[in-house]
């Protein structure tokens, strides 16, 4: 039986501010091994006051480079999130999917564009 484990961000970082990639990484290191083992995780944003993209990139975004998106959808749920933070996370996830899919092509295109000198 795969019982869902609730992981409260506030309890892990000890602050209502998810405003650094460093703290996001700490959260990632807690949840990623569980997901890799196929455990269901509910990530709770209870008591979190401010969340930024860099925090979510590290905590959640990088999981999309480790597991297929369908598997993440199956195992990871999010709760106690404001609509604003939910919207931010949607952008982070969309960005992560692009990042892991197209990064090299994307950078190559820019390399040609960034030709001007200073």
């Amino acid at each position, binding site marked *: 039986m795969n019982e869902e484990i609730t992981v409260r961000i506030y309890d892990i970082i000890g602050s209502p501010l998810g405003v650094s990639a460093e703290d996001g990484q700490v959260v990632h290191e807690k949840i990623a091994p569980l997901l890799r083992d196929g455990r269901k995780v509910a990530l709770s944003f209870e008591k979190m006051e401010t969340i930024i*993209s860099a925090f979510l990139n590290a905590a959640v975004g990088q999981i999309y480079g480790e597991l297929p998106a369908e598997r993440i959808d199956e195992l990871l749920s999010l709760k106690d999130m404001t609509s604003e933070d939910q919207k931010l996370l949607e952008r982070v996830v969309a960005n992560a999917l692009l990042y892991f899919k197209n990064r090299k092509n994307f950078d190559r295109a820019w390399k040609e564009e960034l030709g001007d000198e200073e």
Partner: protein
Amino acid sequence: MKYSLPTILSTKEGFECLASLAGHTEHLFARRVSVDFSSCEFFDANMAAPLGAILARITDRLNEVELISLSKGIQSVLCQNQFLASYGYPALDDGEQTTLPFQRIPLAEKGLFAEYLGRHLQGKGVPKMSERLERAFQQKIFEVFQNAVTHSESRFGVFVCGQSFPTKKRLELTLADAGIGIRENVRRFFQNDKISSAAAIRWALVGGNTTKQGKEPGGLGLKLLKDFFSLNEGKIQIASRMGCYVFENGKETFSTMSADFPGTVVNFEINTSDPRSYRFTSEPGAKN
């Protein structure tokens, strides 16, 4: 040496003049540097942040800095925001409480930065923003602070200060670092030392573009900033090395400055009367 500082406003010319001060003093070591304000008729309070970043670099080379011939008006503004406290001037009470004081915050001290925002964005005469607007604004400021932490390599930390204009319903907040600038990060990433500062800023503003290497995606912070200020009808200015970016009234301009600002400055001008809720969907709740 004596350096005559002209009028400094929150404009491209203002950033150029401060960059020029950096350029004229970069070769000095263990000297006395007198920054002469006698030709400075006006100094926008928030520009104390980039000036602080430049003066930190000068004093780091064991130079002694003095600020001289300040008009009463400029002295009053820069005493009220506590910028002049490090230069032997007395602190002045901010009677109207419209100042977000000058402070230097080490990159590792995100808690100190949070405390600064908590104390100075809320109340203290800063025009009343809705709770949601204030929260959204605070989030964007943290994005910029985190960008400095990740990319600036600024040994001197981040310099912050601001000023509110209650009658205009605007609030200006400026963050400056004395780091390597956006250009250097982008040049390293593309292994191309000819990329211009303006082109580097343009690249950094595109969602998903990041110089971070490794397993972690990034590159959303500046894009989110632009989206927010577009809705808010505010203004963003970024000056980094020789590049200058302005976003205002939905229009963005990239240009090259006449001098090299050693680091990055981000200046926000928020419309505090913005009635939008910044609530993107109607239902709060979970993903599943």
